[in-house]
């Protein structure tokens, strides 16, 4: 079924109760051409673009829990493309362009809202970095501007712009086309569109071993039996090292819990996204009305989807200093997701040289949600043609041998 206002109107006659399932429950086949491990946004997007752009390819997505239950459903949904280096900017801007047409393309409202993102500066060095990044963005054709304190005061009246605080705001960068999207809708939209193109989405199916023979992918052992597949794409975020170990390799990533929390729903009070690397925190208001606040990484490795309390304590103090009006807002929920952090704060989108037919898409760390459509698109082409998509080529795993890192710590670190 194609979703449209007409269908909503027609369903009104039966009290909106006759909607068919968005995608069917399938019985798994014994063999696939490509198996994607991990049913997060990136995995589902990969499957969608593979099935759409390489018709006839039998594709399955294996997810150990439920789709979107990983970082896709746990993130603070900021979407922007104002990175520093050409390689990263090109990749994230490719994604931004896909976001701009995504709801139409998927026939599913992903609630992409280009409400702008502000990155605050609190020191002279912050401001120099902001100017440099804004200039780099403009040279790459990405919208960006430097915003003064006076302008900030006008545009975001509830932001504390006075001098009496510990770290006064000195200015900001702004990307007007940046914004937020609805995380669950992204997972469901890609799943539905992928299923429409014939992709089997298999949940509650944990991959437990990779069957590799003479350096070639043969299949996967899972909690729901064995699947034959000569091409396997692993898109498992925080658990990428676990999958890599099944292939006998190690990755340049370390897994950390990353936390976020939301307040009780309120009337509209913040119409844009505000982030600060220096005081460590960022905030937006969801369409439901809750403040969505993101904190930092636990400073040591971890796989507990929980995180340390002192990290959110630190973030909450920063938020109150930036927005004194929030000081009496009650918080509703807090959670953590496991993110896989790369030494250069850039992802790995790559065939694995040691195993023919094995590909990894990981290392997105704290900031991969914004890349969901672009990542899926270039990874699908990397697998479909068995050679890196031009935008993915700089993110080959070989850069950790050659040393050609893409150092995005400045633009990626806290600012997801």
């Amino acid at each position: 079924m194609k979703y449209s206002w007409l269908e909503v109107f027609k369903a009104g006659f039966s009290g909106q109760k006759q909607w068919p399932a968005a995608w069917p429950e399938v019985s798994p086949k014994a063999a696939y051409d490509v198996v994607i491990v991990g049913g997060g946004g990136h995995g589902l997007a990969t499957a969608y673009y593979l099935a759409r752009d390489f018709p006839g390819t039998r594709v399955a997505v294996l997810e150990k829990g439920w789709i979107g239950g990983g970082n896709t459903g746990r993130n603070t949904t900021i979407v922007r493309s104002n990175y520093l280096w050409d390689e990263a900017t090109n990749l994230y801007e490719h994604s931004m362009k896909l976001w701009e047409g995504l709801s139409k393309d998927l026939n599913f409202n992903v609630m992409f809202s280009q409400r702008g993102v502000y990155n605050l500066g609190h020191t002279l060095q912050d401001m120099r970095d902001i100017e440099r990044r804004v200039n780099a963005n403009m040279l790459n054709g990405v919208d960006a501007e430097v915003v003064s304190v006076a302008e900030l005061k006008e545009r975001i009246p509830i932001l504390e712009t006075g001098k009496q605080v510990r770290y006064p705001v000195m200015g900001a960068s702004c990307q007007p086309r940046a914004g937020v999207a609805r995380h669950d809708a992204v997972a469901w939209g890609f799943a539905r569109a992928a299923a429409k193109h014939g992709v089997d989405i298999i949940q509650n199916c944990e991959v437990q071993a990779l069957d590799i023979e003479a350096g070639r992918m043969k299949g996967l052992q899972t909690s729901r039996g064995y699947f034959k597949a000569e091409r396997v794409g692993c898109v498992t975020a925080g658990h990428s090292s676990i999958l890599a170990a099944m292939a006998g390799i190690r990755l340049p990533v370390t897994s950390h819990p990353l936390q976020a929390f939301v307040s009780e729903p309120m009337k509209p009070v913040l119409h844009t996204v505000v982030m600060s690397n220096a005081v460590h925190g960022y905030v937006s208001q969801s369409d439901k009305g809750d403040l969505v606040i993101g904190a930092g990484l636990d400073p040591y490795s971890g796989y507990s989807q929980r995180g340390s309390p002192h990290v959110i304590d630190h973030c909450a103090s920063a938020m109150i200093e930036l927005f004194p009006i929030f000081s009496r807002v009650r918080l509703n929920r807090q959670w953590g997701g496991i993110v896989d952090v790369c030494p250069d704060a850039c992802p790995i989108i790559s065939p694995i040289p040691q195993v023919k037919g094995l590909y990894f898409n990981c290392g997105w760390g704290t900031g991969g949600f914004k890349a969901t459509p672009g990542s899926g698109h270039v990874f699908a082409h990397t697998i479909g043609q068995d050679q890196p998509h031009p935008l993915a080529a700089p993110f080959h795993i070989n850069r950790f041998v050659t040393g050609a890192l893409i150092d995005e710590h400045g633009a990626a670190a806290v600012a997801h």
Partner: protein
Amino acid sequence: MFLIHCPYCGELRDEQEYRCAGEAFIQRPGLDCTDEQWGDYVFNRTNPKGKVIEQWAHSAGCRKLFVVERNNVTNEIYAVRTFESYKEQA
């Protein structure tokens, strides 16, 4: 949040006094190593789920480096040891 017993100060202190310096006992390859071996040494990590053996520094205390054996899912600490104690064992 957890507490770590510093083997040098002999006190159980809050984790925020310490700094984790990553996986312990990473062997530096010889100068005649290949680029692959060097890349593996500098960048690749085992990153296990469950028991990890890490080096921690008591950075807001005695500033000494030692080894913590920890479960990185539950944050249970199995053992806190000095580097010397591993040498004696070997």
